[in-house]
């Protein structure tokens, strides 16, 4: 098992009455590329800024390399940050910007010159030392910001949506470069982003946050294939989500669930009768057939088919109005719009998400649904 380099234990952050980070527990391993992913306002940037030392947690402990850091100023921490706005010093040349950290550590001038050159060549900016930030393109500024941080040999590099200001093409290119750089340097990257595609392609692990809460942390495959919360299932990729109540275990070991739209089937060893759960199934795992399939009673009408290169995305509207997305590989037979279809899936492809908390809201939700199920039965 990898060694933790950053440990966040039971950390809370309040801005006045605003609870922006809630009971956060997270371990960041040495040498990994960890993305903190979430919509804006989810507390991801605050978390990063607490690690960097720009924000002080209200309570809880943050350690870097086993040392508690709450009393360390940003300039005393062995982590460096690549800022969203780059924060390049406008009155200094690229060289002076990159040299700044070493100058603060009183490294000898001759050594600084060499290391700046190395750092600049690492981000492919050889020969740009004499320019000023204003004379660079967005992508070049981004590279300077990275060089300025990595030249200090930080144990952890914090990146706050560093590619947010770049256009699509440059973003893709920089994603690959960043990933390569991280492998080459072998240091820990903590990367804050709201772009799930970016997080999925670059990261070793992803921490998904929402409303100040860590929803799930795991490898991209785990996050995508085995979401443990409704939020993660919904937020990452496209999915068909059903609110359902577990009814009983069938003879073949699959679980029968009741949802508003009808009966569905999943596979889950953690069966508990009458528990409110969410069932998530990806569009590419969702099937639409002409005749009913055992264990499912989801009947709907095909509304439209959209061709997107390699796949066809169909929308099927169930009788209760819920829209189901089905994607199939282009070339396979496509149901005509207006035709009736039965939605089903391979029980093993569906993920059952057990609700973690028992907040009032959840309770009310389940009561509501219970009433419906009772009425329908």
């Amino acid at each position, binding site marked *: 098992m990898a060694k933790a380099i950053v440990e966040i234990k039971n950390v809370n952050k309040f801005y006045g009455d605003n609870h922006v980070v809630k009971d956060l527990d997270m371990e960041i391993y040495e040498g990994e590329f960890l993305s903190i992913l979430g919509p804006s306002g989810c507390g991801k940037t605050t978390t990063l800024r607490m690690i960097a030392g720009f924000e002080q947690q209200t309570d809880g402990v943050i350690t870097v390399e086993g040392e508690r850091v709450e009393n360390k*100023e940003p300039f005393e921490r062995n982590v460096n940050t690549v800022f969203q706005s780059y924060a390049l010093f406008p009155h200094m040349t690229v060289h002076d910007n990159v040299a700044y950290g070493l100058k603060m550590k009183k490294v000898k001038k001759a050594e600084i010159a060499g290391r700046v050159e190395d750092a600049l060549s690492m981000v492919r900016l050889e020969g740009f030392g004499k320019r000023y930030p204003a004379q660079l393109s967005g992508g070049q500024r981004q590279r300077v910001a990275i060089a300025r941080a990595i030249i200090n040999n930080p144990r952890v590099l914090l990146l706050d949506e560093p590619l947010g200001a770049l256009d699509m093409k440059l973003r893709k290119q920089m994603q690959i470069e960043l990933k390569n750089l991280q492998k080459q340097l072998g240091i820990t990257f903590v990367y804050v982003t709201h772009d799930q595609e970016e997080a999925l392609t670059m990261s070793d692990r992803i921490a998904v946050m929402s409303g100040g809460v860590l929803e799930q942390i795991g490898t991209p495959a785990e996050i995508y294939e085995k979401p443990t919360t409704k939020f993660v299932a919904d937020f990452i990729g496209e999915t068909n989500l059903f609110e359902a109540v577990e009814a009983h275990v069938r003879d073949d070991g699959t679980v029968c669930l009741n949802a508003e739209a009808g009966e569905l089937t999943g596979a889950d060893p953690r069966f508990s009768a009458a528990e409110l759960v969410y069932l998530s199934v990806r569009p590419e795992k969702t099937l639409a057939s002409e005749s009913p399939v055992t264990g499912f009673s989801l009947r709907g009408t095909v509304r439209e088919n959209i061709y997107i290169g390699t796949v066809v995305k169909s929308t099927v509207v169930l009788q209760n109005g819920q829209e189901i997305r089905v994607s199939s590989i282009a070339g396979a037979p496509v149901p005509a719009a207006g035709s009736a279809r039965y939605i089903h899936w391979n029980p093993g492809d569906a993920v059952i998400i057990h609700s973690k908390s028992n907040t009032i809201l959840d309770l009310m939700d389940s009561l509501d649904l219970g009433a419906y199920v009772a009425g329908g039965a």
Partner: protein
Amino acid sequence: MQDRHTFRKKTVPLITMISPVTAWLILLIALPLLYILVISFCGTDDAHNIVFHFTLKNYAKLFDPTILSIYSNSLVIALLTTVICILVAYPFAYIMASTTPFRKTLMMIFLMLPFWTNSIIRLYSWRTLLGTNGYVNLLLLKIGLIQQPIEMLFTRGAVVLGMVYTLLPFMVLPLHTVIDKLDGGLHEASSDLGAKPVKTFLHITLPLTAPGIFAGSIMVFIPCLGYFFVSNLMGGGTSQLIGNVISRQFKEAFNWPYGAALAIMLILITLLLVRIYTKTGGKIDDLGVM
């Protein structure tokens, strides 16, 4: 046809809008300044009338030792005032820039409020405060800082105090503008790269706010040379400025050509300072307008 169209569309409205200001600027700024340049090379007759014959004697008189000492006194007062204004206004502007929007508005209103009211009377009441039996002396005696009342009025120090009092906002405003615009991210970046607060200030904050310091210095230094009423009120004639000498030539001695020569020197000093300011990257637009 085309020409008539342009004429109606552009020339007529332009001339209507621009002719009043053109007349005003030429008749009341350009000509008067040229006129004092002309009379600075003239002499006077016994009845103090200007005699139009070329002479350099007004300029020669500028090198009179008493005048030179007044020049140096003027410059010292202006320099002291500027330095003190920077030392007070910088932290003040910094505090103002880093507080909440509501407090910032409040601080700004209460900074400017006194300057909407008569400056002479506010300056005059310093005489009450600073007098030998005034409240400042009483306070200092009470806390035992001094044993005897000290003479504070009618000194160079009092003139500098009056100048600082009158001109402080002109230093705060440009400084606040640059400090407020400062990207907080740069601060964090510097700290993140290992710079202690003092270093961050020296390497990042100070260079980036230097334009505000320069603009404020120009806006404080130049008026200082001419504000003769501050010297009259606070210095009581002990600490003469260039402005006092000029004013005397026009209102008492009636040697206008000599006064004009002194004023031309003042213009040259001003132009030199503004030139240095623009050469170092300052913008004229940042001067003067509140």
